[in-house]
């Protein structure tokens, strides 16, 4: 079991090292296949770990330590993996979906002259993500957390000659560094009180209420930064500067959902700090609405999907925040399928249109790319949550668990969830109606080109097909009112709180409400964008607000970046240069000036010297006389 975990972790690292060390001595396509193989080997390891964990009674999990990574005083943190139901689920998702996306990249990145670097980075990302989910203590989790941030930085800025890509990469890294910092502060509190960061059961128990609230807040800060939740969300849309497979893997399927994993993993702490946990849920509810609204006005196909990702992660936060960890995790899994699918079909479209991303130019693409069209539709229906597509099963149980709370905020969450479903239907099918149906626009006719007579290389089409199937049937694994093997599997690691366990009635009426809301969204999109029966409300102020993404970027620029830069510049101008750097020379100059003054006594005239001598002697004599 632990062998599988180690294999899973180390195979992608081996892939990275091999590609880096071989450099230009291997052909590009070899680098691509090394990366793909290494990630599929990791998937094999994950399956091995999963199967052997299943065959264990009670499958509570097992630690395995390679060596002590960091040790000081009575604080130890091993290079330690933790194989339990939660981490095996994540391992399977990360390496499985990751493998498909890396395979897809072979076709997508074909012809880029820095392909080897891309594949080294992407297998490094898979390694980091696996370290994050397998790490057996919070310190290793943080290490993985930082390394996924690093690989995300490297991959967003992959086309480093584009200034916008470099800026986006830096922004993503810095906002995540902020999250890392709050998490580190939370760990310091834990270390000060318990001397340990290990996941052994019941860690963090026995802290004072203030301490545990602060720890939970710190963790929430990290989770919100990584998962692009308000107020740390602004980096995610910009991150779409990276290659599309990167958006699919990092900014949809795996890394951005790490915040949900973190809450599920540290639920011991969040349950002791129930207020903070509900703040997490509230953050999710707010984000799912705000992101859904912003998605309505975006015109870049990848940005629409990016906002949809933020919105869906909002659902997961909502689920994990109210205490329905397994529902949040289940949505994480189905979301990985359908969102990766959406990004990859968008990638097919972008590829076929030679890099065009503006949806206003794409009308009628479906006629030329039927496979892409149907796969996109499967992903879109799963996203909106129409049965029997996968999103229906996972999203509804999250919304139902808010109903189970039965408190006033529970009902607010419930309404947000339903409203979010409506928005999801609206923006998803806005995208659909603008891009796929109808007669191809002149732009599409002019720019569309086929790849060897197909819609893309087989390495791209196969993963899309597999994910389309998964996005359709992946949800059947669990329909919480009737069968729930997924929740049962996760129960030893993250048991759903009793307050967040909905009754079957709640499940049913919530399902009806969300499906109706989603269908309503689709209908409105159809009326506006396909039939043009409804006009878009003018409301220029609201439109501008949405186009400016509620002015978060402008706000942060004005409140954080500009003052810091101005303060640093002022320090340099007003203090460093005149005071610190000049003190030495000033002291030197003062010494010289004093010397220059004393120098005037040295006239060079013998008689002056003698006079001083005589005066000195007289002075001494006088002094002796007086003293006597």
């Amino acid at each position, binding site marked *: 079991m632990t062998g599988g975990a180690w294999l899973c972790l180390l195979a992608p690292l081996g892939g990275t090292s091999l590609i880096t060390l071989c450099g230009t001595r291997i052909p590009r396509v070899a680098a691509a296949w090394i990366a793909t193989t290494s990630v599929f080997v990791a998937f094999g390891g994950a399956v091995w770990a999963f199967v052997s964990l299943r065959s264990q009674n009670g499958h509570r999990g097992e630690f395995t330590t390679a060596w002590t990574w960091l040790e*000081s005083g009575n*604080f130890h943190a091993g290079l330690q993996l933790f194989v339990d139901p939660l981490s095996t689920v994540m391992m399977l998702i990360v390496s499985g979906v990751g493998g498909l996306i890396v395979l897809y990249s072979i076709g997508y990145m074909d012809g880029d002259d820095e392909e080897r670097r891309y594949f080294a980075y992407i297998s490094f990302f898979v390694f980091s993500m696996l370290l994050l989910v397998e790490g057996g203590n919070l310190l290793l989790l943080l290490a993985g957390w930082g390394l996924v941030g690093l690989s995300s930085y490297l991959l967003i800025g992959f086309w480093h000659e584009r200034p916008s890509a470099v800026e986006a990469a830096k922004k993503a890294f810095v906002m995540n560094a902020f999250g890392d910092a709050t998490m580190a502060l939370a760990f310091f509190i834990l270390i000060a009180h318990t001397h340990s960061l290990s996941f052994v059961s019941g860690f963090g128990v026995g802290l004072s209420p203030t301490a545990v609230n602060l720890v939970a807040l710190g963790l929430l800060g990290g989770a919100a930064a990584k998962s692009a939740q308000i107020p740390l969300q602004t980096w995610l849309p910009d991150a779409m500067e990276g290659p599309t497979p990167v958006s699919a893997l990092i900014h949809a399927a795996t890394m951005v959902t790490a915040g949900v994993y973190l809450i599920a993993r540290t639920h011991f702490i969040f349950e002791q700090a129930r207020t903070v946990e509900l703040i997490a849920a509230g953050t999710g509810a707010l984000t799912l609405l705000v992101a859904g609204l912003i998605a309505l006005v975006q015109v870049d196909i990848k940005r629409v999907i990016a906002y949809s990702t933020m919105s869906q992660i909002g659902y997961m936060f909502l689920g994990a925040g109210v205490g329905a960890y397994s529902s949040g995790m289940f949505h994480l899994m189905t979301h990985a399928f359908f969102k990766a699918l959406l990004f990859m079909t968008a990638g097919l479209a972008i590829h076929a249109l030679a890099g065009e991303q503006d949806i206003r130019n794409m009308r009628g693409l479906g006629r030329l790319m039927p496979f892409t069209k149907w796969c996109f539709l499967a992903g879109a229906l799963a996203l909106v949550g129409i049965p029997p597509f996968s999103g229906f099963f996972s999203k509804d149980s999250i919304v139902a668990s808010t109903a189970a709370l039965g408190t006033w905020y529970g009902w607010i969450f419930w309404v947000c969830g339903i409203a979010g479903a409506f928005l999801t239907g609206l923006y998803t099918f806005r995208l659909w109606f603008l891009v796929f149906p109808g007669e191809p626009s002149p732009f599409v006719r002019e720019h569309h080109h086929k790849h060897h007579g197909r819609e893309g290389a087989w390495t791209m089409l196969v993963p899309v097909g597999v994910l389309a199937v998964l996005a359709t049937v992946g949800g059947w694994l669990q329909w919480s009112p009737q069968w729930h093997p997924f929740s049962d599997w996760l129960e030893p690691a993250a048991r759903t709180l009793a307050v967040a366990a909905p009754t079957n009635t709640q499940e049913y009426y919530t399902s009806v409400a969300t499906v109706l809301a989603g269908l309503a969204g689709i209908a409105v999109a159809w009326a506006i964008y396909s039939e043009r029966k409804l006009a878009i409300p003018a409301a220029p102020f609201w439109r501008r607000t949405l186009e400016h993404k509620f002015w978060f970027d402008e706000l942060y620029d004005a409140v954080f970046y500009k003052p810091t830069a101005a303060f640093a510049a002022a*320090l340099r101008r007003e203090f460093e240069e005149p005071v610190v750097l000049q003190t030495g020379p000033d002291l030197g100059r003062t010494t010289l000036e004093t010397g220059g003054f004393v120098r005037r006594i040295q006239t060079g005239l013998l008689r002056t010297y003698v006079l001083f001598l005589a005066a000195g002697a007289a002075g001494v004599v006088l002094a002796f006389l007086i003293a006597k």
Partner: protein
Amino acid sequence: MNASSLTSILIWLPIAGAILIWILPLSRYATGSLALLFSLAEVGFWIEQAARFDFTRSGLQMEERATWFGDLHVSYHVGVYGFSMWLVGLTVVAMAACTGYGFWVGRDRSRAYFGLMLLLTGATVGVFVAQDLLVFYAFFEAMLIPLYVLIGVWGGARRMEATIKFVIYTMAGSLLMLAAIIAYGLKSGTFDLVNGPTSASRWLFLGFMLAFVIKAPLFPFHGWLPDAYREAPPEVSAVLSGVIAKAGLYGMLRIAIAKFPDPTSFYRTAVLALAAAALVYGSLLAFRSTDFRGVVAYSSLAQSGLIALGLFAGTDLGFDGAVLQMVAHGLISTSLFLIAGAVERRTTTGEFRFLGGMARGRPALATLLMTLGVISLAVPGSASFAGEFLILAGVFQRAWWWSAIGAGAIVLAAMYMLRLISAVLHEARGSTVADEALDLRPGELALVVPLVAGLLFLSAWPAGISHHSFFGQSPAASVRSQFK
């Protein structure tokens, strides 16, 4: 070979090498090779020392002692503790890389140059192993002579100004330290660091601390730093920030904190405030610097502040983290300055506005600078992350706000390091970057790759240093008991 003579060999071997190089009338190539050979032999002896070091034993190891001036109770007394052994290792490895760099770029007046580099190696090792205050002082000052000449002769356009500033700042500090040493020695009847008693005198503590905060340096005693780091030859800047600065921090640990426990707790908040100021101030200025070396120079100021924060936290985690971070940052800044030198050789400038786009077609340069940059900004999982984490966790036990300031500064570190990386490697090609500017050559790779490999090894096993610097479970207790 007797284990205890290893310590003396580490000091005197390079000095003997320096004298040999000054005497023998060899060609430039032969001189460089001989110097490199000596510095590699030095690394070999250090490996031998590390292999023979017994981490399960407390107290001073590989000790040697001989009376020097008997009537003043001054003796030539050297030996190593765990933490000093790591710093000696940092010194010999970094000096070997820098000597190699001088050989690679072919410094003129080679006999003088390589002799001085070897002399500097010996003197710096001497600082880290001296166990008698006068011997410590002698080596502390002896470091200055080669540096003075190295910056003043082989430096950039404004080298004289930089040299004079550097020397006067350091001399001012170390003369006060000499006064403090004499006062301490006369009062306690011995200059020995191992057997000497602790002292409660605040004045003596301040005398020592002034020398160390200038050397380290901490805000606001860093007036010499920007000029010296910019004007010195790159390999000398590398030594200055990677190794020499650590001598100041080592002094804080070995002398100021260990010998003056009461004044340390009396001035703790003040020193922590200075250290935090250095951390934030250095990070902010690094963020506004417009050239490669400026960023690295101010980030070194910030790192010195961080390490001082760990040392003066006075907790187990703080001490371990500080030692780990000294070694990690030493390797990082040495390699970064060497790469700065490589970039400047190709483009004639380190100014960001003339640089950019160097990643395209230069994979080795891009990979190494990127790796070093991200380790330097303490990306979680790296050796410097481990060090900073321990330091901040350690100082958290003193008061939470120090850690909060430190965490904020780490976000700033991400900002300035990424700015450096992008300005050199990314976006449009800079006006001074010629198409035919080469990637790092094998000679340069041979110097930087071992340092980076060392950092990666430390990233995989930071406990190798953090748990092998002080004897016993509790570093704080070890410091309190004078490392006995």
